[in-house]
Structures are given as structure tokens and as C-alpha cells.
């Protein structure tokens, strides 16, 4: 039995510790917001936070998570209140939407480290998440929007 701290709750699962965290989230815990895209850490659709660090859940054995805190898209905020979710809505970022949980988790980790990132800092942090629909311009705009303290918004 493996015990995990996910989105503020403690969850227990009976799986092979080699099972990637992605499939534990999706198939065992019903947290399907984290997506499968490539299985080998090339596309970023599966990004989650471990103690705030963005990691590819598809290559993270669940047995290696240990006591670290797991945050998934479902745990980013209740009621779409995260500044990035609000910015994503304001900029109408998603098209098909499949990669967007990974994009949001990558962006959230970026803003936690660098509250007002430059374009090149956005490139560096976000180039690990692929989008086939081509929403990159809007992702960039949304990150800048979320990075501006809202009190300064007109």
C-alpha cells in the first residue's frame, strides 16, 4: 500500500511502486485532469507538481514520490480562482484543451519562482509542454496577464 499526499488529501493505493504516477492518478484515483500524451517526458501533458516542482508524471514511479506533496490540475484552485486560470479564460487560451492542464501546471510553477517572467523565461519554462493546436501566443499573453498584480489592472 502506497500513501500519497495529493491536493491536500491523503490517498492510498495498492499498486506496483514502478507504476508511473500518471496512471495512478488517472486509473486508480480518478484524477483524469492530468493527461497522457507521450509516455516518455517529451510533451508535458502530464505535468504535476511535487513539492511545487513541475515533474512529468508519466516517468515518475509512484514509489518514488514518497512524502512529497502532489498537486494536480484539480488541486490548482477551487472554482477557477487561480490567477492563471482567470488569465487563461480572459485570453481564451484553449482550443482542444488537452495539453492545457500541463501548460497551466508548468506556468504555475514558473510564476511561483519568477513572479514576473520575461519572454525568454517563459520560453525556457514552457517549451517542455507541447500544443498541437498552436495556442502558444495566448499562453504567453496569459502568463504575462497573470503575472501583473490585479490591482494594477485597468
Amino acid at each position, binding site marked *: 500500500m502506497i500513501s500519497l499526499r495529493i491536493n491536500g488529501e491523503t490517498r492510498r493505493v495498492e499498486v506496483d511502486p514502478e507504476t508511473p504516477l500518471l496512471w495512478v492518478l488517472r486509473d486508480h484515483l480518478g484524477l483524469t485532469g492530468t493527461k*497522457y500524451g*507521450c509516455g516518455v517526458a517529451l510533451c508535458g501533458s502530464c505535468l504535476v507538481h511535487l513539492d511545487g516542482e513541475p515533474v512529468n508524471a508519466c516517468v515518475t514511479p509512484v514509489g518514488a514520490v514518497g512524502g512529497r506533496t502532489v498537486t494536480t490540475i484539480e488541486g490548482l484552485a477551487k472554482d477557477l480562482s487561480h490567477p492563471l486560470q482567470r488569465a*487563461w479564460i480572459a485570453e*481564451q487560451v484553449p482550443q482542444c484543451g488537452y495539453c492545457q492542464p500541463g501548460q497551466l501546471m508548468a506556468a504555475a510553477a514558473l510564476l511561483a519562482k519568477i513572479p514576473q517572467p520575461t519572454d525568454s523565461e517563459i520560453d525556457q519554462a514552457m517549451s517542455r509542454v507541447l500544443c498541437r493546436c498552436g495556442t502558444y501566443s495566448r499562453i504567453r499573453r496569459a502568463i504575462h496577464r497573470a503575472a501583473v498584480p490585479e490591482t494594477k489592472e485597468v
Partner: protein
Amino acid sequence: MAQRLRLSRRDFLKISALAGGGLLLGVHLPSSGRLAEAAGDAVFAPNVFLRIGTDGAIIVEVARSEMGQGVMTALPMLIAEELDVGLDQLSARFAPADTAYVNRLIGQQLTGGSTSVRDAWVVLREAGAVAREMLVATAAEQWGVPPGECRTERAQVIHGASGRRTGYGELAAAAASQPVPESVFLKDPEEWRLIGTRAPRLDVPEKVSGQARFGLDVRLPGMLFASVERCPVFGGRLLRVDDAKARAVSGVVDVVPVTAGIAVVAKDTWSAFQGRKALAVDWDFAGNETLDSAAIRRRFEARLAERGVPVREEGDAPKALSGAAKTVEAIYEAPFQAHACMEPMNATADVRADGCDVYVPTQAQTRTQQVAMTITGLPEERVRVHTTYLGGGFGRRGEADFVLDAVELSKHLGRPVQVVWTREDDIRHCFYRPATLNRLRGGIDAAGSPIAWEHQIVGPSILARVAPAAVKDGVDRTSVEGAANLPYAIPNIQVDYSLAGTQVPVGFWRSVGSSQNAWVTECFLDELAAAAGRDPFELRRALLEGSPRHLRVLELAADKAGWGKPLPAGRHRGIAVAESFAGFVAQVAEVSVGEDGQVRVHRVVCAVDVGPVINPDTVEAQMEGGIVFGLTATLKGAVTIEAGRVVQGNFHDFPLLRIDEMPLIEVHIARSDDPIGGVGEPGTPPIAPAVCNAVYAATGTPVRALPIALGPRKAGAEKAPAAQPMA
């Protein structure tokens, strides 16, 4: 003031009472698509677009698939505009498979060909107007006032003089017994309150909360997960399998042969993947294991050596060529391309004795239903298709191979089964954009005007697989679109097509034939411009006098891009224009080419004319998306064949454009009163030629094969394009 218009198909409108009260607006839709004509009978069946409950709930049934193109918002906008309700007052849900939801431009219930809004543009506005008129009539009767004194706003009928107002929900039950009007008013464009606005998409909140349900997110009680090992070589088949080790993998429940290969079924996806790796399979490669890209090219070359089937002949191109002052000849080569939707292919089926439910991210409800009916033997009404959100489509999800996997497995096991394709399955078992080989010859007269154009296209046919009867006299119209309809006023034009099948399965890939034909023709036009010593924009402008919509977007793009104005050192522009799916798009790309031959696209200015615009934000998003999709194929990847199989398998060798390679994209929507066009696909065709023409401007060497692969550049290699002498 709007004119009262006869309903375009009043005979088909039906209104009935909802069970439990309320109004249900149904429409019988005849099919008029080409495929339906071929099938020889029209489709008549009841269908529901709109439900208004006595509680005021307004539900719009969206009969097209949402794959990012915004249809889940655009179609309800059409109804809401005429019904006078806010988008925030309705909910949209995906319609089941039903013959009544047939896309009349295609003849099946299918989302593709950038047809959704074109198909719905009139009928959904009429549906909204009819419902509104009946609600008004009901209220007017109840109040004893003339209907003409009533207006509607935000789901209420209002009688201005008396100040009375009633919500649609309270009127719905009585409205359902009103006669269907013979004719309705449709608003004039200046009366639109919703159409033409940047209405927020209805699907965005779910897509940023992680709650949006894609195909892979379907969870049913007792469900199993499966992964199918397919023959790596095209056209092969299973000989024997040793599944002992696979069955020993923890979590594996069964190993089952299916049409496509051999499936490992498990309690979770990961166990199915692990079990699959433990299979030992012998395949019969059917002799295809020697097929490779070079052999396919030789096959194409052999066809190029003989005359193809003429698809357009005007004047006498060979004669004009022989008398031309200058001639240019070139071979253009486009590779196979995979769709690489971010959500790998999948489907979930629940087959029982009395019925079958298929939960699937599909563009093709009709085909899905037909496949499930064939496998289960169940009648149409017992096979229910539940369309989820699609994590990308691009034409790939118009297929039903993943549905076949799931239905076969669920039938065999008697339990719900979700089939999950790996990324490698997706790249290696796609229906690829056809590879083509093209020969072009062009002639220019002494005054520098193009007088002859010859284009021969060699490649495999999509229709030969999906609708063989639609291949007429050896011509697949999808293979020549974007080439046969060359818009330029050149007096002698000859376009030929040579169908050259291979074992590699081909399919519809965003913008289909135009995705490569626009590249070929627009790049070759720049070669002619160079040979004639003319500016590529000015030459196009001169040749497009009779094509006002091409001209409109060409001039808009050139103007907004500052065509002809100086650029920073090392930057070059290229321009291209194309019509596809009734959308007209021109793009100007600004690129630089590094010492290492690396092409960087800095800026793309895009001008688009699609006639009336439902939602400008969606049009912009689709242009951005179409450009990025095309840029990946221009700059990054290709599918190649070795030993009968696809070489590429994941994003390391089939790379997609990343955010750090993203150009600045500016979209300008042309004011246009011309007929409505598609937006999902037309953004893609111009980008490859715009970029390649900019590279040509930078290097003086035309780009005649994709993706662009330039070697390291010699010092001082930058030069103006020069004419390529005819071999």
C-alpha cells in the same frame, strides 16, 4: 428592417412538447451531400436542435465535434442570436449519432472539411427564429395583444406598452402547440447582438479546471483497459503469438486477438502497456518489409515520366512553353505527415446483448455507429455514440480504427473496455497526409508575364480508400484541390494527376490537398517571379485581377506586413495566398536563416476573408492554429518509411513546434459581404509557401522539399533569387 423570409425547409420543422413539459424544436434535415447522392437516398429522420424546459433551461444540441475549433460555441451562437438569449443562459451538449444530424455538405454526421458553420449558418438561425416567433405568439395570445407589439430579450418576451414580461420557460409548454410559421424574420447583420462578437467559448472553463472529459477520461463501472499491438509493417497480419509472459504481468486480465492485431487487456492502462511489451508476436509482413521512402519515390518518378490524367486544360501549355522567352522547371516533393493529436487515439465501448454504447472522441459519428453495428449486429437505435471532447482531430478522428478495437474487445469480454493507443501507435499507425511528387514547368514571355503553367501531381489517393466510387476517371479531387483551381490569370494551364498508391495508408490531414498543393504552386510562382524579375506580391496582384477575394486578402496581408518596406538586416519576407474550404487566406512570413542553416520564423501576418464572421476571436485562433500546424510540417518533421514501417515514433523524432519557436502572429479579418467560408483549415495552406518563399528570398535557392533542411551556409551566400534554367 429585416425581410420576412420563407423558411429554407419549413416542411422539415417539427415542434413537439417535451416529456415533462416544455418545448422541443425538431428539424428534419434532408441530406444533400455528395456521398449521400452516391448512396442514392436522402436521409429523413427527426432531430432535435433545441430544448426549452418549463424551468427555463435552454439546451442546444451540438451535432458537431469540438476539437478546438470552437464549434461548441459557434453553433449555439447562431440559435441564440435569433432566439434572443444570452450564451450564458443556455447550455450546449453533444448530440448522439443520428441520421438527422447529417452534415449536408458531406452526407454523413461528420465534422470535417471546415463545413460546420457553413452547413448550419442558415438552418440554425432559422431554428432560433422559429422558436422565438412561437414563444412570442404564445405570450401575445395570453396577454391579448398583437405579437407585433412584443419584443424579446434575454429569454423573455416583453410587451413594452404594458410592461409585461414572461420568461421562455413559462411559455414553453403552450408554445409547443403553436403552428410552425411559414416564414420568419432573420435579423439583418446590423441587428446582430451576438454574431460577430468575441463571445467567450463555452468550453474554456472546463478546459482550465481539468474537468473537461476527453475520450481517455471516460470511466465506467467495471471497465478494463486495453492496448493493441499492431503489425509494424503496413499490410501485414498476425501469424502467432506467445502470450505467456504477457499474461503473467500483474494486472493483465486477458490477451485477445482483434482485427488490428493482438490486444492486452488489463485492470489499468499501465498494466496493459507492460503486458504488451511482454508479448512475443510473429507477423506475416506480406512482402511489404522491403518498402521504404526511396522505393516510394521511385514509384512516383516512374509515374511522373508518363502523362497523368488532365484535370484542367486551358489553352495549350506545351506549345506556349516551347515558345516562351524564359522557362522554369522544378520538381517539388512533399512527405507523408502524421496528425499527432495530443490526445492519442482511443475509444471506450460497452457492448451488451441489448445494446452498445461507444464513448469516443470522434469526428465521425455515422462511421462510428456503422462500425459498431457491423461488429455487434445490433440495429442502429441500439448503438449509441457519446461524443466526448476531442484532444485534437485534424482529420485523424474521422477514422474509426480505434472504435473497431474497442467494440471488438468489449463484445468479446462482455465488459466496458477502453482502448488506449500509445504515442508510438499513433505516429506509426496513422492515416498519413499523402506524400506527393510534383513537376512544374512555367513559361514567361518577353514582357515578363507568365504565359504557361504545367503541373503534374503524383501521389496516393485518400478517396480510393474511403470512397472508391468518388475517384472519377482516375482523379481524386482531394489530391488536386489547391492546384487544379490555380487562381492566376495565365492563358495556358495544364494540371495533370497521376494516382500512385502505396502500402502506406493515407487520410485527411488539416486542409488536405491544399496543404501541399498551395505550397507547390505558391513556391513555383515565386520561381516564375524571380525568372521574370518581378516582385512576388506585384506579380500575384497582376495575375489576380479576376479573383477579388484572393486579391482582397493578398493586399491586406501585404499592407499590414509592410511589404516592400525595409527589414532589419538578415530578415526576409515571403508571401503566399490560397483558397481552401471557401476561406481565402494570405500570409506574409518574416524569416531569418542562420549560419547553420537554421530557419527562424519571426513574424507572420495573416489576412483572412471568410465572409460573415460568427466570432472573430475564434477566426483568429483558427488562423493561429492553422499556421502553427503548417509551421511544424514546414520546419520540423516528416514521416518516412524503412523496412515497411514508419521510422518515427514519438516527439523526439516527430517534433512539434514549441513555444520558443513561435513567431509573432497577427491576424487581420477582411470586411467581406461574400459567402461564408470555413475557418478550421484555410489558415494552414499559405504558411509553408510564405515561409519557403522568404527562405528563397534569403538564400536565392528555392525550397523544393519539405521539411526545410538547409545545410550550413557559405559566407556571403545571401543573394537575390535567380532564375532556375530549365534542365
